[in-house]
Every structure is written in structure tokens, then in C-alpha cells.
């Protein structure tokens, strides 16, 4: 009788510790899983209510499933008009800010120069400034100088707040760049332009693409700064906020869902491009 008891009491603390360890090993992943669910909760609600068939203007309670909103949205110029404005702004702002930001990113990673600290600060401060202050100060400028607010001022503002994010993204991707690849190309007789076009650019392209995607996402999403500099032009977020007081029509959820799906596709393409890059890099070295 005593022998098994001793065996059990000997085994108990051991087993208790292992369940304790197992529990604590579970807590963190479960917590993280719940946090991810929390992050996706509003997205799930948005997608669900894009299929709702509301009785009145208010798309708040679940009435029934319909695909009709996905058809109706294209016949509502009041919804698609601001979306088109947003797309024009986002494309223009992305192109300009990606070029300007990539150039600064290359300067910061590849050269040593006077005024580095000042430049770093000039890049960082806009990212840390509340949007309302950037919007308000741009409005102060445009009012003081007497510039008519509209599409042009929206693009100017969007390029401004995008540049920093492009610089940071491009810089992160170039910092692991192997300069000896360029030197090899030059040794093999390539001139500077050929080296850039055939070696440097393909290698940093995934970083530039990532930066452009981020810029596009920031631009199409912006409400606060745009509100201050828009004048009479209306972007999609401005329009959504405007109608939200009267009740958000399900078409807003439809466009929100579509943007989300398109973003998913873009990220897929980006991951694919990155994979290809990693697979292609050694072969290029071999040649």
C-alpha cells in the first residue's frame, strides 16, 4: 500500500508542473488568437453587412441575405464618383511619393553626407505628427497664400504624408543589399546606368513595390488631412463620413469589402514577387 503511494506522491509534483507549464504555454497563443479575432471583428461585421438587405436607410440590424448591393452599387454615381476621385488621388500620390521617397531611401542607405540627422528628423516627424495638425497647418498655408483647395491640394498633401512611409519601407529593404553585386557588374564592363537597370533596380524592386502599396493604402484611406485640404472635391472617406450621420447605406460596406479583397490580392502578388526574388537571387549570383 505504501509503495504505490510513494510512487504517486513522487510523480504528482512532476505531473502538476507539466500541466502548469502546458497551461502557461497555452495562455499566450490563446490570448494572441483572441486578439487577432478582436482585430478582425469590425472587418467581419463590415463584410457581413455588405450582404444585408436593410428595410430603410439604416443598415444596423440584420434583415436578410442579398447579393443585390454588389449589383446596385455600380448604378449609384453618388457612391462611385467619390471612389473614382479617391483612386485618382491615390494613384497620383503613390507615383510621386514612391519616386521621391525611394530616392531619399537610397541616399540614406548608400551615401554618407552632411545633414543626415536633420534629414532623419525631417522624415520621422511627419509620421509622429497627429494628422489633424498636418491638415490644419496645410489649411493655414493654402488660406494664407490664397491657393484654391481641390484635387491638386489633396494630392500635394497625400504625397507629403506618404514620403516618410516610403522612405522607411524602402530603407528597410535596401539595408540588406549586397553592394558587391554592383561592383561585380561594373567589373564586368557595365556602365552605371546598365548596373542600375540590370542589377540594382531588380534587387530593390520588391522594397519599392511594398512602399508603393503602403502609400496607396494610406492615401485611399485618409480622412483627416483630406478634410482640411479638399475644398469642394469629395473623396470616398469624406463621402462615407458625410452620409454616416443619416445612416450608412450597404453600398459603403460593399466598397469597403471590395477594397479589402483587392488589398489581399495585392499582398498576395507582393509575397509572390518576394518569393521569386529570393529564388532568383542565387541563380543570378551563379551566372
Amino acid at each position, binding site marked *: 500500500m505504501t509503495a504505490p503511494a510513494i510512487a504517486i506522491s513522487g510523480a504528482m509534483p512532476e505531473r502538476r508542473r507539466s500541466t502548469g507549464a502546458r497551461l502557461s504555454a497555452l495562455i*499566450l497563443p490563446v490570448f494572441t488568437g483572441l*486578439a*487577432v479575432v*478582436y*482585430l*478582425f471583428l*469590425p*472587418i467581419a*461585421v*463590415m463584410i457581413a453587412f455588405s450582404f444585408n438587405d436593410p428595410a430603410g436607410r439604416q443598415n*444596423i*440590424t440584420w434583415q436578410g441575405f442579398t447579393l443585390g448591393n454588389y449589383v446596385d452599387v455600380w448604378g449609384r454615381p453618388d457612391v462611385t464618383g467619390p471612389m473614382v476621385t479617391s483612386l485618382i488621388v491615390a494613384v497620383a500620390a503613390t507615383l510621386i511619393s514612391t*519616386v*521621391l*521617397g525611394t*530616392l*531619399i531611401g*537610397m541616399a*540614406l542607405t*548608400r551615401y*554618407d*553626407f552632411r545633414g543626415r*540627422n536633420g*534629414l*532623419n*528628423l*525631417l*522624415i*520621422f*516627424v511627419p509620421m509622429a*505628427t*497627429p*494628422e*489633424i*495638425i498636418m491638415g*490644419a*497647418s*496645410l489649411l*493655414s*498655408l493654402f*488660406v*494664407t497664400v490664397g491657393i484654391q483647395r481641390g484635387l491638386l491640394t489633396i494630392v500635394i*498633401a497625400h504625397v*507629403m504624408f506618404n*514620403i*516618410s512611409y516610403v522612405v*522607411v519601407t524602402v530603407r*528597410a529593404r535596401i539595408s540588406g543589399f549586397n553592394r558587391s553585386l554592383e561592383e561585380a557588374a561594373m567589373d564586368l564592363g557595365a556602365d552605371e546606368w546598365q548596373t542600375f537597370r540590370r542589377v540594382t533596380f531588380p534587387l530593390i524592386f520588391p522594397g519599392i513595390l511594398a512602399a508603393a502599396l503602403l502609400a496607396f*493604402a494610406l492615401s485611399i*484611406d485618409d*480622412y*483627416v488631412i483630406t478634410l482640411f485640404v479638399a475644398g469642394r472635391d469629395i473623396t470616398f*472617406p469624406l463621402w*462615407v*463620413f458625410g452620409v454616416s450621420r443619416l445612416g450608412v447605406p450597404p453600398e459603403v*460596406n460593399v466598397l*469597403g469589402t471590395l477594397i*479589402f479583397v483587392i488589398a*489581399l490580392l495585392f*499582398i498576395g502578388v507582393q509575397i509572390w514577387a518576394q518569393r521569386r526574388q529570393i529564388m532568383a537571387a542565387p541563380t543570378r549570383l551563379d551566372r
Partner: protein
Amino acid sequence: MPRHWRWLVPYLFLIPGGLWLLAFFVVPMLVMASVSLQEGSLGTGYSLTWNFGIYPETIQHWAPQFARSLWYSLVVTALTLAIGYPMAYTIAFRGGRYKNMLLLLVILPFFTAYIIRTLSWKLILADNGVVLGALKDGGILDAGFRLIATPVAVISGLTYNFLPFMVLPLYVALEKVDPKLVEAATDLYASRLHAFLRVTLPLSMPGVFAGSLLTFIPSIGDFINSEILGSRDTTMIGQIIQRLFLNNNAYPEAAALGFTLMAAVLAMIFVYARAVGADELTR
């Protein structure tokens, strides 16, 4: 390009973007500062009278909203830290080969428009919405219970919207912590908790600072969450600045408030930059 011109190359790269930031970020700040010191009206025009008195006047007048914004942002920063640290820790140390996918999951929701996300929260927190409606029908909550239009709604909206700004810098910092250091500590008879408190936590402090800064600053200036989820009793300083500028055309007063907020933000950034070094800021 001749060799002695080479030093010019980096400047050619950074001048176009640098000028853009100077013209549309730095100059507007200075213009806003100057507007705050002007007197006049839209009809008669403004003139610079160096009216510094406007600063104590407006700050005093809007002190409750300033204090409320400060209080909300502190709570939001604490909450995002409490939620974000375990998340970043789990992804960095337990993520294995799913690290990148988990990080993507953290960022993914933010590819939906800020306004739409916040409106979604309004739907979730609504008096008879998906959550409260069910709880009230089940008799768990009193019919009069509400979340929307309360500080709880505003703070939870802010916490949600700025959580990734906390998680990402924390992840970057925790990812750099060498697990071997923690192992060495436990080998030297430190308990797991002790090893965390004495090794992992101190090493992740740069991430805690960066994350707190990137959460606190946008929260204190935010006006969307209070506008959509709050009420007149949750008015934040961002809403005041927006209304004074766009509805009341009270430019000097609005500019004074905006510049005060900016000065506070700049002070925080400079302290932070001194702590981590300027080159680390954009890394």
C-alpha cells in the same frame, strides 16, 4: 560625372523629396504659428499683431478638452501595451515559421478604411446592435445599458485603431532579443518570470518607448473616434481644432491650439530622439 562632383550625388537624390517636405510640412507649421499670432476676421482680413495672449487664453478656455484628450490617450497607450506586448512576445518567440503570417494578420484589418472600421465599431457597440441587443434580450444586461456615446466606446475605438502601431515596434524590439540570453538566465537559476523581468523586458524597452509614442501621439490628436463613437461629453481637442478651423473659421484660435499640440508632440519626439539616436528613428 567628374569625380570631384561625387559628393553632390546624395543631395540630388534627397532634394526633390526633401523640398516637398519642407514646403508642405515645415513651412505650413510656421505659417500656422504665424496665423495664431494674427488678429482680424475673414471679412476684413488678418494682420500679424504678435498676439501672444491668445495662447494662455485658448489653452485655459479649452483646458477640459485638453485634459480629457491627455487622459484618454494615456489609458489607450496603457491598454494597447497590455494587449500588444503579449501579442508581440508570442509572435516573436513562439511564432516559428508562422511569424510573417501572424504579423500580416495584425496589419491586414487596417487595409479597410479607418472611417469604415470605426463605423463598424459603432454597429458592434450600438444600443440594440449585434452584441448589446443579444445580451439585453438574454436578460444579462439592463435595457438601459449603453456603450455608445460613452468614454468606454471612444477609448475602445482608439485602442483598436492604434493597436498595430504598438505591436509592430514591440515585435521589432523583441525579435532582436537573443533567446540564448534568457536561457543563460534560467541556467543560472533565475525563474522564468525573473528571467523575463531582468532580461527580456529591459531589452525590449526601445520597442515599448517607440510603440507608446506612436500610439499616444495619434490618439491625443484624434477626432474620428470621439466624433463617431462619442458624445458631447467625450469631446477631444482634435474635434475642437477641426470645428474652429472648418466650421467657425476662427483661424487664430484654432492655429494656437494646433501649434500648442504640435509643440507638445515635438518635445516628446526630441526626448525620444535623444534616447534612441536620430538614425534609429527611420530604421
